[in-house]
């Protein structure tokens, strides 16, 4: 039954990782900005949810809306006021990365000052497991995480394939110069990418607040997961990010059946290294020859 339990845990962790990675993958794939502050968006959204739900006690709906608004505003403003300014001055990929990394540190410290440096959790009976079978415990929130991940990816798939904005975004990812010929503005599309990518992280932030808790420094961990899942899944591929997130979550949990828990996180990076060595394009990525 241990294997079944680890499999269920892996599903939950994997779905959360997929949700976390999707936003980063979308932003990176469409705009080529290595948005290291994606973890900061996660932290801000999570803490805003906690503040409204647990401290102000305004309920789940208001808290979710608050988290969505904060994530969306943060994402758009970062693109507009930081990345766009750097791009205008022909800043390199590395300049954008350093700016983003610096921003993540600033946000981490601001969150620590405003919300405190300790761990905060959103208490809910939904995170309490119940025994389904002898030795197999499943929490209602596991189902919520899976449904949430499924809905988010379906919505995203619809958005990118069936709407004008989605198709334009994909075009932006393919060739940012060429889309201007069609009268589209890369700057505006970039803001859409940041808006959608930032909003995508909100369900994961809320669910993490309820399952494992939040602290101001967790942005770095979120970034590591995002980067690993994006590379394993294939840069720019949302389907890849979903599959990679699930793969990493499953590997991290199922490995506990054979190895010491101390090494379970390292399994994520073993998977990453294997992909870099043997399939550098990722699960759904395209091989690029430069």
């Amino acid at each position: 039954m241990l294997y079944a339990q680890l499999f269920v845990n892996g599903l939950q962790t994997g779905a959360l990782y997929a949700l976390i990675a999707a936003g980063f993958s979308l932003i990176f794939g469409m705009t080529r900005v290595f948005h290291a502050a994606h973890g900061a968006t996660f932290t801000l959204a999570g803490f805003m949810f906690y503040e409204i739900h647990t401290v102000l006690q305004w309920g789940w709906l208001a808290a979710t809306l608050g988290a969505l608004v904060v994530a969306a505003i943060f994402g758009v403003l970062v693109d507009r006021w930081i990345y766009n300014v750097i791009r205008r001055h022909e800043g390199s990929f590395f300049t954008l990365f350093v700016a983003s990394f610096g921003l993540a540190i600033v946000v981490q410290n601001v969150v620590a000052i405003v919300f405190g440096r300790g761990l905060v959790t959103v208490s809910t009976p939904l995170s309490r497991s119940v025994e389904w079978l002898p030795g197999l415990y499943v929490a209602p929130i596991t189902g919520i995480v899976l449904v949430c991940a499924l809905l988010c990816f379906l919505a995203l798939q619809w958005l990118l394939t069936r709407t004008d904005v989605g198709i334009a975004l994909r075009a932006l990812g393919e060739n940012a110069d060429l889309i201007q010929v069609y009268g589209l503005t890369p700057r505006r599309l970039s803001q859409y990418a940041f808006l959608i990518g930032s909003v995508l992280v909100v369900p994961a932030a809320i669910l993490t607040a309820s399952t494992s808790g939040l602290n101001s420094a967790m942005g770095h961990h979120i970034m590591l997961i995002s980067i690993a899942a994006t590379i394993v899944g294939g840069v720019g591929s949302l389907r890849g990010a979903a599959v990679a997130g699930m793969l990493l979550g499953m590997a991290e949990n199922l490995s506990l059946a054979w190895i010491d828990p101390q090494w379970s996180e390292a399994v994520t990076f073993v998977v990453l290294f294997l992909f870099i060595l043997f399939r550098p394009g990722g699960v759904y990525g395209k091989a690029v020859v430069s």
Partner: protein
Amino acid sequence: MQTSTVRVVRAMAASVFFVSASSAWAQDLVIGGLFPQSGNNAEYGQIFSSGANLAVEHINADKKLKGTLSIVYEDSQALPMQGVIGVNKLINVNKTPFVLTGFTGVSKAIAPIAARTKTVVVNGGGVGPDLADLGEYFWNTIPLINLEVRTLAPYMVKERNLKRFALVYVDDALGQAVRKELGEALKSSGGELIDSFSVPVTAQQFAGIAARVRDTKPDAVYIASYGGQQAQIAKQLRDNGVTQPLASYSAFTIASVLALPEADGAFYTSQQVNWDKGDAITKRVLADYKEKYNKAPSPYVLNYYNAVYAFGELAAQLQKEGKPVTGENLLAQRRKSPNFEFVGATVKFADDGTVSAPIQVNQIEKGAGKMVYAAPAAAAPAAAPAAAPAAK
């Protein structure tokens, strides 16, 4: 002629002013604080510095020293590498003869630098047992984990009839020390450490570990971690079907654990503090801390208050004797007069720079620690506090 005389007089007056002023400035003392101010353990940095800052305020208000005492802080992030960078800056740039620190890993990393530069380093938060062996310049104002584990194990086995323990420990110097101590302490008490699970310092997902802990069917689960991670472990163990009693050590005395609903009922050890000691310093700290932070000080607060207080006492004695306040002189002075009237206890530094204090077992009840057992003072001969009220 008259003009030149006036100039000479003015120059002499100015030089007298500057010489006297510089000698007054030379009396100002700076000590260092090497605490985590960012990262997963920043909550401890806030607690530690609140105690140290209060002591500095009291020392300056009492004009205990010639000149003003101040603290310069560096962020250790509770990581050994950052700790080494921070302590080098405090010693070489800020020229501090006395540095406060915490965390076993950081303490072990900086102790050789302290010994080489003859800088006194005082730990009031790290509890790894080998912190007693870090040299003459490394002092502790906190009883170490071996005392805590040796108090908890017999209590849990004999009083609570919880004999089979599983251990979830962070894979660092502290966690490894707890694993060794707990195994031995349980064995000698008639219990057993049935399995142990190490986790990396950065881990945040423990559902899988909960499944493995459940599989071992323990009577109780001991958590040896710190900061946000120990709260995450406690929450995720409970969320994932581990219903057995939880136990831990003094690191549980932080708000994010005490306030956690899932930690309710957990046992943890801490040093005994005698709030009824009745002396002026204990009353003053209790009153001023409550006024400033609207809560009672935790043992960590007292440890760092006491560390700075000890510095104030030793530095004042040195200044009285006309000696410079250096690490070397502070050590010599402590050896000459090792007894201190600390907050909540009268203590004597042992030759290895440690202080002992009797330990109490607490149980978390509605967001606060309630003492359920006080080990007799005989178990810790160097300190003599009398009573042990509830930890907050």
